[in-house]
């Protein structure tokens, strides 16, 4: 027991690990809290690093292979860093019927990325969701966590253009 706990120290002295430790403590380091803890890691760091997976494995006393297996089974978890901006296009049935594909094409046209990809400069990631539960607003799209409804190819292009151009405007705060 002691040995395990001694080994389970965070991969770095980044303060954000405190949040992860807190989540594990709240669940009494139960192995069943694995998915909850991975959620916390991703929420805190943006994605799941290999270091994080190893740390969680030791801390919850779950084999690394299982942690990896769980992290890759669920679509919500990402092992790659996201771009500075993210764009999630809903591809649920209602959105599909109302033209989700044309939104994906619009992003591709401006940024040159397909679903699941990030631009080379790390400006933008394009993701898809199976359904956001906002069919009333179909087709729906989420820009940096904010849901936008009744999207059109033109409105998407405009938004993506501002993201892509924000690099030349450089380090300042985006509008």
């Amino acid at each position, binding site marked *: 027991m002691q040995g395990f706990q001694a080994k389970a120290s965070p991969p770095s002295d980044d303060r954000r690990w405190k949040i992860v430790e807190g989540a594990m403590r709240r669940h009494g380091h139960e192995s069943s809290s694995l998915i909850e803890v991975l959620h916390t890691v991703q929420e805190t760091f943006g994605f799941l690093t290999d270091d994080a997976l190893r740390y969680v494995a030791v801390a919850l006393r779950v084999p690394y292979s299982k942690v990896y297996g769980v992290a890759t*089974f669920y679509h*919500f978890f990402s092992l790659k860093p996201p771009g500075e901006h993210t764009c999630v296009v809903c591809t649920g049935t*209602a959105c*599909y019927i109302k033209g989700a594909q044309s939104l994906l094409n619009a992003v591709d046209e401006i940024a040159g990325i397909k679903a699941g990809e990030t631009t080379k400069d790390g400006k933008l990631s394009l993701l898809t969701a199976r*359904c956001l539960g906002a*069919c009333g*607003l179909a087709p729906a799209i989420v820009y940096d966590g904010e849901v936008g409804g009744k999207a059109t190819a033109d409105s998407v292009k405009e938004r993506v253009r501002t993201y892509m151009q924000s690099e030349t405007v450089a380090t300042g705060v985006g509008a």
Partner: protein
Amino acid sequence: MNQEDLKEIAEKQKEANAPFEHNIHVCVAASCLSSHSDQVMTALDQEVKKRGLEQCCKVKGVGCMGLCAAGPLVSSGNNEKMFQNVTAMDAAAIVDNVVDEKPAPAAIVLDSKLPFFRGQKKIVLENCGEIDPEKIEDYIAVGGYEALFHALTSMTPAQVIEQISKSGLRGRGGAGFPTGLKWSTVAKAPGTKGKYVICNADEGDPGAFMDRSVLESDPHRILEGMAIAAYAVGANKGYIYCRAEYPLAVKRLKDAIKQAEKLGVLGNEVCDTRFSFRVEVRLGAGAFVCGEETALIASIEGNRGTPRPRPPFPAQSGLWGTPTLINNVETFANIAPIVRNGGDWFAGIGTEKSKGTKVFALAGRVTNTGLIEVPMGVSLREIVYKLGGGIPDGRKFKAVQTGGPSGGCIPEQYLDMAVDYESLASVGSIMGSGGMIVMDDSSCMVDVAKYFMDFCMSESCGKCVPCRVGTAHMYDLLAKITNGTASQEDLAMLERIAEVVKFTSLCGLGQTSPNPVFSTLRYFRDEYLNHIERKSCGAGVCSQPKAAGVGA
């Protein structure tokens, strides 16, 4: 906390609401929030203060009013007046209208007498758009937690189950299994290591959002239903498995649990009785198959969400190997009203074998997209043309898709059919969770079948071969048909594989994945043949070598 305390809270809240001559309700459910209804609410608040009307006009955030497509929505005077597409700039005009009866700008007036609103019967959604979902007192003021008190203090668990059985309620998660029967099975199962109650809030069907709406608009209703269920089956611990894509629902649930524990309607010695019940929220992580009950249990246990063969059913051996009751969000939402009004009352609504109401998410090519609740047995035509307002842009109705990836497409000839579990099944579709996607002549039915097959193929957990390989093979064949390179043999092959996948897959995902193919073949076979023989897509959706030249 006892019954007197509860009454007192209700009275106090009612008193607090009473002096207001005018009430303005602003929808703060996710869809309207995404079009900035929070700013509308702040602006209305400021406007009321500016005019010194705080004593007679109250602005309140409420849950979903149903017609999300016209959001943000604002209502007043028990929904006598409704406003649509509201922005913060409209605040003054709305207060003018509500308080001083001045006419409101035509652009924001929403006709509250529309059949969309008038044609509904609300049980599950009765508090949505009425109460503040973030305030337990508001729920108590409309009779919340009375049913739980009543069950705990004047009914035995067996009597509770008897009322649920009498009501004829069937599970709203898809299969329509009798709820009373499930409850009595769990109640009878020996639970020496405890029992669990789980609320399935995974809502994975694309095109379905009724569970989300209830969770965001009336979270205490779910907690009350779960607590009554726990008392009836003998459980002391519950989980709500909610998808991570619904952050607002998760937040409101967690807040609601805290409030309920503080008041003593959840936690130890609920309502001063010997019954204790704790609830925890668990987050899904984007896997459709986790809506399947055995996969969901695996996921709560911290594993990959893969289904296992049944029996044993969760009612016998579920979470941690103990008897577990799993019901859908909407199922739980029906419990408190049944206990309050009696099983016979509920059984008096709906059709012979499908009792009560059903909430549908109406989406696709229909004028009024949104959420509706209607008695079982209402016709499809009434839903699509009366409540839904028909097909926009002068287009022609083609089909309604119900039941998501496990369902089917219903063509025009069945529009007058009564919507209930049996009749939907008789035409090759299912009720499912209540998603209804309306399609017009701009949709290609082969493409729709391909869409659902793509969904099942990528959501297959891969545990069993027929589903893993079969869905991929069917998808390839459908892709061939849509891009104009398929032959008659490919179609025959598609039908053969569909049969195999249906009968040999381990769980419901695989077993039902061919349904969209079966149903489109049944009613729209000519469209398949058109793609194969003439290499053309009537709706102009599919990329055909002849038509479009280079396909992308």
